[in-house]
């Protein structure tokens, strides 16, 4: 990170910077004052946690081009690591245990990344599946991880930072928002650094990358570690701030697919994509249930909703891959450019 290229000469803040500033003002200043518990608990907190997980996966799949189907496993590692850290080392403050949990997840990522040195494509995807199943098994079988809770379900510790309690919906939203903002900034620095460009070089042409001196093996492992660090912290937030329990079932293969879908729909290889995709994934079921209730009345039960959601989600994935492989982020870009042209 210290070898960053010299910053571009100072100029007027671009539209992007202004937009980001406005978003932060909105998220920190206006939303906490006006939002209801429902908005915090059912919309914003899960949105932020999923966006962070998507961001992490995007580092690996979008930037480095390494497909992983084990995101939920890394989330689980992060969540259970944070749980154990705060349980067994009571002196640890929340930020520290989150950070350490991220490092534990990064370690798991390194292990999962080892096959990437020999395998590519489907074979690598299958090896991340192995991790997914192994973690699910370990959570259920090794009592120590869940403090000998028979079902593996444990209650998350209270969110306290510097003596202040963040246990109410608004507080949990603010904690999540802060962590996500910080990590997004770090991820942005990473992808704009030479290392980030190395990731893209490996994705686009590994042989060429090797030829120009990219240390492929090291960079791939770094991608795995960085990605699972972020996903692990996302998992801890998902469990601590959103669900407030840690349970193995929440981190199954469907969750891994969900994170992958977020990245595909939002846009592979963009940081914004994870947020757009996560927003979409969180809002979609709510929209569908409203729509279903309006169209069908009482005949629309939760089972039907789940199936309709599956169909719509699957169809969307296919449609996005065919029509807009760069995802919602590209759509937004185009819309923005069109508006800009009109304004000019």
């Amino acid at each position, binding site marked *: 990170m210290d070898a960053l290229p010299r910053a571009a000469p100072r100029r007027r803040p671009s539209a992007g910077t202004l937009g980001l500033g406005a978003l932060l003002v909105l998220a920190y200043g206006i939303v906490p004052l006006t939002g209801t518990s429902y908005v915090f608990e059912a919309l914003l907190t899960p949105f932020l946690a999923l966006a962070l997980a998507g961001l992490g996966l995007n580092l690996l799949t979008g930037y480095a081009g390494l*497909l992983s189907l084990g995101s939920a496993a890394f989330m689980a590692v992060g969540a259970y690591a944070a749980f154990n850290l705060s349980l067994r080392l009571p002196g640890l403050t929340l930020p520290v245990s989150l950070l350490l949990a991220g490092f534990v997840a990064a370690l798991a990522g390194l292990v999962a990344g080892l096959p990437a040195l020999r395998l590519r494509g*489907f*074979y690598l995807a299958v090896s991340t599946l192995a991790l997914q199943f192994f973690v699910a*098994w370990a959570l259920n079988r090794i009592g120590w991880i869940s403090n000998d809770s028979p079902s593996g379900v444990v209650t998350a510790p209270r969110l306290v930072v510097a003596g202040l309690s963040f246990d109410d919906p608004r507080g949990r939203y603010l904690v999540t928002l802060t962590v996500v903002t910080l990590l997004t900034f770090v991820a942005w620095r990473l992808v704009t650094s030479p290392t980030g460009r190395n990731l893209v070089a490996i994705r686009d042409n590994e042989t060429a990358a090797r030829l120009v001196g990219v240390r492929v093996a090291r960079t791939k492992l770094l991608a795995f570690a960085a990605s699972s660090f972020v996903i692990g912290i996302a998992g801890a937030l998902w469990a601590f701030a959103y669900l407030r329990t840690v349970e193995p079932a929440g981190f199954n293969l469907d969750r891994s697919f969900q994170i992958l879908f977020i990245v595909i729909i939002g846009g592979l290889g963009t940081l914004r994509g994870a947020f757009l995709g996560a927003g979409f994934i969180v809002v979609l079921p709510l929209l569908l249930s409203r729509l279903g209730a309006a169209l069908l009345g009482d005949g629309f039960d939760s089972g039907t909703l789940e*199936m*309709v959601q*599956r169909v719509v989600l*699957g169809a969307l994935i*296919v449609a996005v891959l065919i029509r807009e492989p760069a995802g919602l982020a590209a759509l937004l870009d185009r819309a923005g450019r069109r508006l800009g042209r009109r304004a000019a």
Partner: protein
Amino acid sequence: MSPDLALLIEVVVGGLLSGVMYALVAIGFVLIYKTSGVLNFAQGAMVLLAALTFVSLTERGLPVPAALAATLAAMVVVGLAVERAVLRPLVNQPPITLFMATLGVAYVIEGAAQLAWGTQVHGLDLGIDDTPIDLGGVLVSRFDLFAAAVAGLMAALLSAFFRYTRTGLAFRAVADDPLAALNTGLRLPRIWSAVWIAAGIVALVAGLLWGARLGVQFSLSLVVLKALPVLVLGGFDSVAGAIVAGLIVGATEKLSEVYLGPVIGGGIEGWIAYVAALGFLLVRPSGLFGLRAVERV
């Protein structure tokens, strides 16, 4: 025969027979991968759809042959639709994109199948006796033997088809070199359609056997997860490899469950096959029978 040895043989035989069931699903993957380079994650969903459609039709009073014909027709339509609507527009995209598209297809098929036929668990009785028979002191399930016979027959038929028919020859040509095949006047879209129909039929056979074994329900589509280590081990493009790898995976799973399970905890069959397959892959990256070493080192 000592009881230990008898147990060992019984475990191995049981494992081999369940491995045949894995191979049955894996063959569906191989067909599509061989000819179009697509790892079709939706194969499991197709297995579910076939079994669910067949069961639901018979439960609604359709005679078995008619239900079978209708299910077959449905599978053909689905196969054609997927090829037409999803894969043809994505032609020449990287394999990972195609894979993710089939993931989407799997979601659509799973959701639609259960929307159409409901989510309850159905029993499926193929009329095959499941009492174990005694083969020289080893108890073997009659149903498993039947399933193994069906899988063997199907693999033989497919191999013969690939080897001796003109369409099979065309399949092999496309698998070998799509551009050259196109150049000799083979119509790729038509061949891909045929392959998807064939995969639909394989899914139907697998769906009936797996459905009879596990009951017809959503988890049937998860057999895809059992087939993946088989594919990794056998190579994505070999029917024979799928069978052999299926046997190995089945035996490994059962052996480790019985002998390793007590040591490190039960329930390891969810991941042991993956670990075994990956370990093997690190040593021999093209799998047992895989032809090309693409996408690996």
